[in-house]
């Protein structure tokens, strides 16, 4: 958990203080930094780090860009009757894989 926080803090700092200075550059939706945050929140910290790293490498003119949601592998044990705010929608893909989409976009 601490590791995840440590990873998330600099990304948030970047989003607030450095990103505005550089203008809009990212070729993807969600942006590389947002992708990293979603990954960190939904996946294991190491996986999140490497996936975000390769996402940044992909983010240049040689790739098409566009919509690219994080895809994670997860075993889900359904629980019913819990009243909870929905943070992420996990859209099922094949083999326990899910597409991650943030429910309500707020910062």
């Amino acid at each position, binding site marked *: 958990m601490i590791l995840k926080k440590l990873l998330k803090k600099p990304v948030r700092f970047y989003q607030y203080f450095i990103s505005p200075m550089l203008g809009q*550059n*990212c*070729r993807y939706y969600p942006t590389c930094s947002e992708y990293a945050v979603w990954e960190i929140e939904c996946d294991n910290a190491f996986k999140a780090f490497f996936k975000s790293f390769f996402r940044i490498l992909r983010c*240049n*003119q040689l790739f098409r*860009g566009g919509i690219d949601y994080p895809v994670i592998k997860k075993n889900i044990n359904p629980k019913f009757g819990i009243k909870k705010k929905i943070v992420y929608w996990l859209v099922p893909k094949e083999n326990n894989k899910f597409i991650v989409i943030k429910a309500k976009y707020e910062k």
Partner: protein
Amino acid sequence: MKNNSQMKRIIIATVISFIFFIAYDYFVLQPKQKAAAKTVMEQNKTMQTVKKEKTKINKSILNSKTLVIVRAKDFEAKIDEFGRISSFILKQKKFEKKDKDINLVSDKLPKPLEIRFNNQKLNSEAFKIPYSANKTDVVLNGNKKTFILTQNLNGEIVKKIITFYPNGRYDVKVELSKKTKYFLSPGYRPSVAVDHLTVHGSLIEKADDTLDVIKDGDAEQKTVKNAIVAAGFDRYYTTLFFSKKPFEVMISPDNEQNPVLYIVANSNLNLTGYIGPKYVDTLRAINPALVDVVQYGVGTFFARKLFLLLDFLHKIVINWGVAIILLVVIVRLILFPLTYKGMVSMYKLKELAPKMKEIQLKYKKDPQKLQMHMMKLYKEHGANPLGGCLPLVLQIPIFYGIYKLLLYSIELKGASFLWIHDLSSMDPYFILPVLMGVSMYFHQRLTPSNFQDKMQEKIFKFLPLIFTFMMATFPAGLVLYWTTNNILSIAQQWFINRVMAAKKVKK
């Protein structure tokens, strides 16, 4: 009204953070430096009384008489009666200071070429019986010159045959009449440019090209075999021994845990030495292995590669400032294929203009949705005007590398460019930081951006101002790099915008 108070708050925040930096510098950094200077002085005082290594240090060792003076165009070296280099003063104009000459031989012991014997009796005699020399005044007129120092220690005859070169290199041959274990020192590291910001200490390079960098304060007693370079260094200067034939080095910490190097031998020894600024060219001329003596702290590998590129440019254009500008141009040229692809996709984009308008109107109030639908549109039509994150990320190591090489390269110290007299220190007239702020402002105005919230937008608007203040104290060369980069970005953006406009008119 609300807007106004937010504005005020941001101005206050900026002012407070600025005051914080000044206060931090005044109350924390400066006393630290003063304290460090004080401990160095105290250290020197205690040094004279403390027992060190295998010898007692008495006054006669510290205040020894000068035996030989070596004069060259670039330096003046003194050899004292115990056969050690007791002072090494740089004569070039660049190193002239108003109050004091730059003496590369530290006040601390050992001095370069100092011999200490393992045999206690022999050792105490070595610091009582003075050497004799066959020459007392050696003048180098662009040629190397040799002189011989001899010491007779009750039957053990110690001979040092020293050849000085005009560039600060010297060859030394130690000859003993009887075999005995002794330690020869390249000298305590120069103490001219020592600060908290930069790395200083000792370095050993082994025959298999591996490096062992021992920072001041981290030293532990140990012996390294198979060494070819043994150097003590501060930010800009070094004193070192080199030999193609591997030798054994002993690292012996002083009472501050700073590494002190000794070469361990028991018979004749042949070494090449160098005292002077860490000029990459001079070091390479002696032997390419010595280039590694120039350390740039964390990221040395990258900073060195960048320095060699910058040095190459400098040799073409003569001026370091122009070389930095050229470096920016080269970096942008390397990234140009990417930029060009972006420009091509711009042409495709104009066909999408009506659709884009539609989306923009539809999601006016939700920038996230707007961005998402724009991306979808781009992907459908195979056009994406944005440059991407990678080209930006690639700039970071280059920027860091330039910062490092400006910090450590003696070549760039005192390098002038237009009104700036030293690219490695801050711009005294603050022209460059202001130019950077202005160029940043215009760059911001030209690049389209969307914000997720109002706070972000406010910060964005004040960033050029904040950066102007922040960069004011940074090395001028770094600010020059950034300013040039901004200006080139503006030119590029302006060009793209014009192409877009021309296409629109045609339509």
